[in-house]
């Protein structure tokens, strides 16, 4: 008997593409059915994925799991809001996770849970170590917004793991995915004509290629890889470097007034920056991926620079693009 995989949050391009890829795997992979769940219809074709229109914030998700005989849950409905402050995001992320976990706990056939977490769980502050490993916890910057949400989500998943020790749990803390086709917070930020930044700070950033993200998720669905793993492309880029490569000018703004006065200016010039993103472009965040290589057994195919280069090649050149030379 094959397996039935439930993928949450399929209305996003990322999750629906992943669900489709999973459904299109050949027979040898041992996946019978892929069920996608979300409140709104996905934008593109879902292929072999069975779509169920339901809200994971409601107990109905338990019924869906019982009816479909779901034994593997891939929770991808935890995402950093792309635009604005994302008022409803916290509700969806946290309450949705709680309901989903409650349903998983009731189900007797669920044997695997894959959580698509984020490196935002480490927060972002000047007291951070240069490189985060999986054993670190946030030292600052995780007291509000998306980082707080993701910390809470992971805490609920740990609670679930304690109550149902026989369920295999893979937590994938992925860095920011950057791809021209995906509407991610950083993709949105880099698309602006000018890039507002924090005066006097030049953060180190890491990006993840969408193919690597899919590969790691697929791997953890098909094989048993319990544990928590950081997923990111090798190496780092600086924000100033990104801006120069894109040919877009950085507009350094003093940190103190970023919230009110200059905020309007920022909004007029470029897409609005959420407080979480502002923190990230102030202090940056770098994670260690040796556990992914050594324990999980996956080598990211794209380095951070390659991910960024692919993104840059697809985006339209900025106003300063003629100033420097590239290889």
């Amino acid at each position, binding site marked *: 008997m094959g397996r039935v995989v439930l993928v949450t949050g399929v209305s996003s391009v990322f999750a629906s593409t992943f669900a489709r890829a999973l459904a299109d795997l050949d027979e040898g992979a041992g996946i019978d059915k892929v069920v996608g769940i979300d409140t709104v219809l996905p934008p593109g074709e879902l292929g072999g994925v069975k779509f169920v229109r339901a809200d994971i914030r409601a107990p109905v998700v338990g019924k869906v799991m019982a009816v479909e005989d779901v034994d593997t849950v891939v929770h991808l409905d935890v995402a950093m809001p792309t635009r604005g402050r994302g008022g409803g995001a916290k509700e969806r992320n946290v309450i949705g996770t709680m309901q989903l976990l409650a349903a998983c706990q009731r189900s007797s056939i669920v044997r695997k849970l894959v959580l698509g977490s984020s490196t935002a769980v480490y927060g972002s502050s000047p*007291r951070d*170590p240069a*490189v985060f*490993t999986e054993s670190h916890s946030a030292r600052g910057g995780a007291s509000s917004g998306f980082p707080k949400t993701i910390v809470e989500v992971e805490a609920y998943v740990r609670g679930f793991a304690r109550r149902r020790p026989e369920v295999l749990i893979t937590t994938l803390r992925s860095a920011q995915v950057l791809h021209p086709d995906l509407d991610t917070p950083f993709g949105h930020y880099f698309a602006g004509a000018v890039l507002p930044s*924090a005066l006097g700070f030049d953060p180190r950033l890491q990006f993840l290629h969408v193919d690597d993200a899919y590969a790691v998720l697929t791997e953890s669905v098909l094989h048993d890889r319990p544990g928590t793993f950081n997923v990111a492309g090798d190496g780092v880029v600086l924000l*100033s*470097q990104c801006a120069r490569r894109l040919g877009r000018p950085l507009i350094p703004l003093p940190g103190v007034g970023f919230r009110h006065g200059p905020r309007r200016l920022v909004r007029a010039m470029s897409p609005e920056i959420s407080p979480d993103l502002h923190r990230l472009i102030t202090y940056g965040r770098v994670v260690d991926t040796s556990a992914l290589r050594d324990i999980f057994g996956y080598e990211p195919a794209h380095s951070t*620079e390659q991910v960024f280069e692919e993104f840059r090649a697809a985006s339209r050149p900025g106003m300063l693009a003629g*100033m420097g*030379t590239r290889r």
Partner: protein
Amino acid sequence: MNDDAGTTPIGTRGRAGRGSPGSSPSAAARLLAGKQAATKPATLAKPAKRPPADETSAAPSGRTERARRLHAVTDDDADEAAREATGASGDVPGGIPVDEVLTALAEAARRVLGSDWERRLATMLATVRGRLGGDYSVDEFGLDPQIVEVVASAFEPIAEKWFRLQVRGVENIPADGGALLVANHSGTVPVDGLMTGYAVTKHTDRHLRPLGADLLFSLPFVGQVARKMGATLACADDAERLLRGGELAGVWPEGFKGIGKPFAERYKLQRFGRGGFVSSALRAQVPIVPVSIVGAEEIYPLVGNVPSLARLLGLPYLPITPFFPLLGPLGLVPLPSKWIIEFGEPVRTDAYEPDAAEDPMLLFNVTDQVRETIQQTLYRLLVERGNAFI
């Protein structure tokens, strides 16, 4: 040109450097006009400022003040004078031919950059273009080798000429593999960190990775530059990561207690933190190199502190030096003390088991050993150095 300074305020009714187009030309115009022309308005304009003298000089000639003003050097006069003064090379103001300027520039480039200056200039321009295009790479800690190179060469004259730095015991820095450099901390502003980094870069081919307090990374600009120069946060994770990766890490375990101690307590080592650096070195199994720095204490003698204001600003101390708030920005110039940096014999840690890091008594003993080595070396170096400034 000796009368320039004297005449400027008079001819311009007290406004320096402007001049009025009719009567008194500006200093620049007088320069153009040459010597004779330049003196002319000085004698003529002088009476205008002093009424008694004006009457005596004006009465015999019978001219009004208006007439005299008209007689002052105009732009045409100045041009004519300039043409007379420079002779044949008429259309170059100031009389320096273009080819001479170019030759001088080439000569300057040759002096600064050496004989193959054209190739080096091309390389430099390519580097600048590459940087503007974002075409460089940093490591995961944020070290940017090009920035390190630029800062090191900018720092060289300060270290060599101003502080007259002597470096000893460079052979004690391992040529490869990880090592932890442990140094005393002093001088109000962490110049000693920069100097140690400079000494290591100059005498070995390695970069020192300083471990700094978290205050450093929360400050704008400072933290950014520190990261690009290879500094990272002084925490066990970063230290062990660097050391395991075979890097040279530098710590100043006295921290703010050492750097912000009063001048009266100079060269008296403070407590060496909680010995965390020893446990990092033991875990990574790398040698500890004691570094004794003499000279940093005298650059900004800390004679006072404003704790309340420091607390308000979130700083560990707010220094008062004999010159700092008193002379304003001039007080920020460090005093030219003589520096000696001595790298001592490494304390080997590979004789201990890796789990020796769990033994607090051993940690205290090794910490004391390193501290005592540095203290004794400091006393010896102080005697050898003699006067701090001469």
